[in-house]
């Protein structure tokens, strides 16, 4: 397990914390946040290469705050792999074996060679062992870096944006490797990224770090559906954040500034709230064609259409700016174009309310 107890860490004028976070044994946690949020500082503090200003750090229930990095048994993989360029792939991986055996090991001898072969097989680098790091692709480098970290038999594995320097295809393969290997080795993992899709693809638990503060922790689906505040909501891609007032005669009804209203599933938590609606939860209909039983429907004019892979992001004004995500096929069927009037509907359960700050 990994535990942060009121941890504070600083670099120059920027500081992170105090942070409290628990990652259970064998759990895959993702620390998600925008660039400059302080994610890497957290990892470096946990790894023991940066001193904490306050608080305690726990690994497998042991307090490691004062331990030097080499005695923490925490693996660290950086974005660019950072393979030692003067060593072959095999020698890079074997570097970690020295500690796991408690002494310098000649990796060509058993059992070190067996462990090396096993790791190479697990991460798919068997055919790369004699190569030099400079000749490897980004994805291959990350696999080797992962094997090297695993060779030292860490109690926890820290990954700093491990997929951001690899191409899309290699990224998906690496995600599979990370998922499989972390399960096989029963590893506790703390993975840092700014990429939402990467986080939700891998995480058992997600923690949101914004401006050095931990804003929310929970299962990915919960964090996605019920963001704790506006900053989290916007970072997670909930593009519709609407300021509204509670209807005092109906606590499940929010009044927008434009005179329109939206119904929510639970009583509104404050008199003034921000309503969060994800674009994919917003449905688009031809004007006047929305189902009569839809609890929330807004009339809007299309002002922008952006093709995103197989989907189209529809920008509309109601007159409040709103965005909906529809499949490209649905956009074709609706003959969407700028200037067209449409109706937007959203289920009450898909409108999340947070107290306005």
């Amino acid at each position, binding site marked *: 397990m990994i535990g942060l107890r009121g941890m504070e860490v600083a670099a120059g004028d920027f500081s992170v914390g105090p942070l409290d976070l628990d990652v259970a044994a064998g759990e895959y946690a993702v620390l998600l946040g925008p660039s400059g949020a302080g994610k890497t500082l957290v990892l470096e503090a946990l790894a*023991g290469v940066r001193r904490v200003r306050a608080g305690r750090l726990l690994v497998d229930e042991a307090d490691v705050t004062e331990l030097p990095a080499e005695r923490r048994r925490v693996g660290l993989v950086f974005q660019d792999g*950072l393979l030692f360029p003067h060593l072959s792939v095999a020698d890079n991986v074997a570097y970690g074996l020295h500690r796991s055996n408690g002494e310098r090991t000649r990796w060509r001898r058993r059992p070190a060679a067996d462990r090396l072969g096993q790791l190479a097989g697990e991460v798919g680098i068997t055919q790369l062992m004699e190569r030099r790091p400079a000749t490897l692709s980004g994805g291959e480098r990350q696999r080797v870096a992962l094997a090297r970290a695993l*060779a030292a038999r860490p109690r926890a594995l820290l990954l700093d944006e491990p997929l951001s320097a690899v191409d899309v295809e290699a990224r998906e393969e690496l995600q599979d490797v990370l998922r499989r290997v972390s399960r096989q080795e029963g590893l506790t993992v703390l993975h840092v990224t700014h990429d939402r899709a990467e986080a939700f693809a891998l995480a058992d638990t997600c923690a949101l770090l914004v401006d050095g503060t931990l804003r929310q922790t929970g299962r990915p689906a919960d964090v996605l559906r019920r963001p704790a505040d506006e900053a989290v909501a916007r970072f997670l891609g909930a593009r519709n954040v609407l300021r509204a007032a509670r209807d005092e005669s109906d606590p499940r009804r929010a009044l927008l500034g434009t005179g329109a209203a939206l119904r929510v599933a639970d009583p509104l938590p404050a008199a003034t709230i921000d309503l969060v609606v994800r674009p994919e939860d917003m449905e688009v209909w031809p004007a006047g064609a929305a189902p009569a039983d839809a609890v929330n429907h807004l009339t809007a004019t299309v002002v922008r259409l952006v093709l995103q892979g197989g989907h189209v992001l529809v920008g509309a004004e109601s007159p409040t700016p709103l965005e909906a995500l529809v499949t490209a096929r649905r956009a074709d069927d609706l003959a969407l174009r700028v200037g067209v009037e449409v109706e937007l509907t959203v289920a009450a359960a898909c409108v999340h309310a947070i107290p306005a700050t």
Partner: protein
Amino acid sequence: MSGRRLSLFWAACVVAGALLVAFVVLPAASMVVGAGAGLLGEALRQDDIRRSLWLTVSAALIATAIAFVVGVPLAYLLARRDFVGKRAIEGIIDLPIVFPHTAAGIALLTVYGREGVMGRLLAPLGISFTETVAGIVLAMLFVSLPFLVDTARETFALVDERYEYVARTLGSSPGGAFLRVTFPQAWRGVLSGAVLMWGRGISEFGAVVILAYNPKVISVLTFERFEGFGLRAAQPPAVLIVIVAFVVFLVARAVLLPRRGRSRKDRA
């Protein structure tokens, strides 16, 4: 239009560069060519020149070795850590570069001479810096130390510190990470600094002549012959040391070049 400007610009660069290269090469080439093989043979047959050459080369080597032992850790410290007074220390290390070398000799004499603090302190141990090899080494060390420390510091700074972070998490102590990860990536730069320092050491005259006129290093011997017997007599030792220095530089560059070749290929 812009292409023409560019070509004029590059032409100006080439002309300026050619002038500078000629300025450096001409005196050395003129001396070596003018001397010819006969003069070189004559130099090698003279005992005092051979002794002086050996003394110069070995004293510069000892000075470089001492600087390596104490200067490389300092260079690493300066490259990796921020601390109060760091800028001041960097300035102090560079001070010998701006010191007139005869003034450096005088300064060393006031500390390490017979009446100097260190001179008096070390005299009972039989260590003297005036008119001794130790004095020559001391003078060479003082004036050429910045070449090694500065080059090594810059080289260490170019090695990403996160390599050491990774090595530490893999079980290496800070010293182990330095020896097994950082130094293997930086050794060419450190060697380059050492060669520069050695080269600066063998050419030292001002500080050496103040501290230890005897035994004579080759620069002092050349000066003495020139003063006493003229240009013809001064040429053999001068030619010899230029050739030795040139050969050492060629060998050192051959060792350093493979990395440059690889990096060009990597970029391609």
